[in-house]
């Protein structure tokens, strides 16, 4: 292992990136664009859900229920339907997410002390949105029912109290704002994909250009080549970590509650593992196109689907949970969220850091081995 050879390889790679404007796009433009796209695109908090009302009752009771919806910030009334056929049209054209149908005789039933049913016609094509909307609808109806119950009790001279209420105290993300949850995950996703993309072409490009032959004919060892190739990209990826943290704070207002230095230190370990994945693809692929494709699919999909970034790991089948454990991003995601939201320290995080370190060493060894064989 000679430092000078490694640095020579790193310098050549660095110069190449400096002179190729395309690398700048990958290193600077791509993370910012992805951050904006995902930061604004993925949001579980629904507000102003468009809906329509089809009031077949026409009594005071029905109108006050509708008002309850109208005054909520979660809903936004788009149309009061008078023609039955508009229901289908509005749902079909996605102009509204649901139609609230007040059935005939609602006021009469309630007045007579009978149960009354309100109908919600939901567009279920987007299950996440439909679920959230349904939750809000149920909440609003329950709220209204409780209010009615209390009024009814008071009206009959009873003390108007509700039997049970929950008083939640939410830790770590008091406003339950999904940005606080998503932005740290997004940083992990960006780093996982970018690092693999950056390194995925570096060896196969030399193969395509022909300079690969000079490299393998030289006394440089596989490890020197691997590390030399990784070094410039490690620097760039580290700059991207900083970029993401700053952008998260400035654009989305997400703060790191824990120790930023610790976050940066652990991200270096993760970068080593993640860069090795790209190098591995680069050593295996025969063309740059294939390498980029592999790197993107091999990091983007698992990180989005299996790391716990979007879908909670606990609700996955056991087999998938097992697979998720061999993705470095899964562990790094826990680290980043913990430091971001819980201000966790090494006392809690060290097992995860250890796992990441094992990933880094193993992946680098595999990449070096795969590279050696292809000479």
């Amino acid at each position, binding site marked *: 292992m*000679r430092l*000078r*050879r490694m*640095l*020579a*390889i790193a*310098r*050549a790679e660095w*110069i*190449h990136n400096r*002179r*190729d404007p395309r690398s700048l796009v990958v290193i600077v433009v791509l993370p910012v664009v992805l951050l904006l796209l995902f930061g604004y695109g993925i949001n579980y908090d629904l507000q102003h859900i468009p809906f329509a009302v089809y009031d077949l009752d026409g009594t005071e009771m029905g109108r006050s229920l509708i008002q309850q919806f109208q005054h909520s910030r979660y809903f936004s009334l788009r149309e009061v339907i008078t023609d039955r056929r508009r229901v289908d049209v509005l749902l079909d054209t996605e102009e509204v997410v649901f139609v609230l149908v007040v059935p005939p005789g609602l006021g009469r039933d309630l007045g007579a002390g009978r149960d009354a049913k309100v109908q919600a016609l939901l567009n279920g094509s987007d299950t996440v949105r439909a679920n959230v909307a349904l939750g809000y609808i149920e909440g609003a109806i329950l709220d209204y029912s409780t209010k009615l119950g209390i009024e009814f009790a008071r009206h009959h001279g009873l003390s108007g109290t509700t039997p049970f209420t929950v008083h939640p105290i939410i830790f770590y993300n008091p406003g339950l704002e999904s940005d606080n949850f998503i932005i740290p995950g997004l940083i992990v996703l960006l780093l996982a994909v970018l690092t693999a993309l950056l390194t995925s072409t570096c060896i196969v490009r030399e193969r395509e*250009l*022909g*300079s*690969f*032959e*000079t*490299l*393998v*004919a*030289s*006394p*440089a*060892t596989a490890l020197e080549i691997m590390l030399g190739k990784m070094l410039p990209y490690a620097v760039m990826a580290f700059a991207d970590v900083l970029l993401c943290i700053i952008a998260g704070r400035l654009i989305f207002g997400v703060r790191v509650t824990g120790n930023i230095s610790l976050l940066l230190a652990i991200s270096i370990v993760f970068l080593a593992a993640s860069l090795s994945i790209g190098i591995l693809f680069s050593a295996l692929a025969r063309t740059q196109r294939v390498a980029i494709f592999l790197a993107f699919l091999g990091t983007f999909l698992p990180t989005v689907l299996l790391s716990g970034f979007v879908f909670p790991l606990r609700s996955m089948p056991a087999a998938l949970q097992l697979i998720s454990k061999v993705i470095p991003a899964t562990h790094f995601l826990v680290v980043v969220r913990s430091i971001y939201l819980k201000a966790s320290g090494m006392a809690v995080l060290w097992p995860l850091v250890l796992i990441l370190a094992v990933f880094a060493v193993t992946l680098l060894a595999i990449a070096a081995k795969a590279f050696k064989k292809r*000479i």
Partner: protein
Amino acid sequence: MSSLAVQARGLSVKFGDVTAVAGLDLDVKEGEIVGLVGPDGAGKTTTMRVLCGILVPDAGEAVVAGHDVLREPDRVKARIGYLPQRFALHPDLTVNENIAYLADLYSVPAGTWQQRRDELLEITDLARFANRQAVQLSGGMQQKLALICTLIHRPEVVFLDEPTTGVDPVSRRDFWHILYDLPRQGVTVVVTTPYMDEAAHCSRIAFMHQGRVLAQDSPAALRAAITARILEVRCRPQRTAREALKRYPTIEGVEVFGDRLRVAVSAEADPAAIRRVLEEAGVTGLDIRESAASLEDVFVALAVGQQSQEDDSRAGEE
């Protein structure tokens, strides 16, 4: 001086069903310029890659610069220089950056190679392009730069794979002038080429055909070894002469050169008899002169000889 810089025994390389190198033996003495000469597909590049330790052969062994290529490839690599057939430098690095990159890769002690670089840049007339990116050089200059990079660590043995293919003749001459300096410094040069006229520059030639070495010797000895004599025949009409000669027994080959025929005849052929044959065929302006065999004559004779041997043995099997 007489120890061997390269010694290969029974090298074989297969790519799937194709046999690229078939039991090749090669000896190269120190301080020689040896040409591996043969047409495309003869196995020159594959042989060279094996000798440089970047391709593992299916069979055989080789010792290069005192070390076993299979057992100690890294020791071999540190002692040799290799110039691949395809341009193999970084196109976006400048001339100087490429040289520094190679000096670092080969761990040339800092401060000792700059003088060598300046020297080589001077000889190759590349000094004024030192800060130009390699991609912006002409083909001839790129090859000269590649040669400088190959020599910067003062290797003991230099392997050059078709270094002047596609290079203009002037750059090619410049290139050879650099190579001529190497034997004087005790450096051994192994160079491949498909061109017979370029092969003539080498102090020794190994003719390659279908993965084997047909013969290896100095150009003069190779020329002397062929038993056929070459006659230059001028006459009109040329085709009548050609057809008459092809039917005549002691003629081994007839080649057309514009206004004359080069006729390879066996040793016992009688020029007077050949003259009679041509006169009887009715040609005019007949002029016959004896000429020296060219390297291409030698190669063709050897290749045809091997071909007919193989055909015979194949016919014997059937």
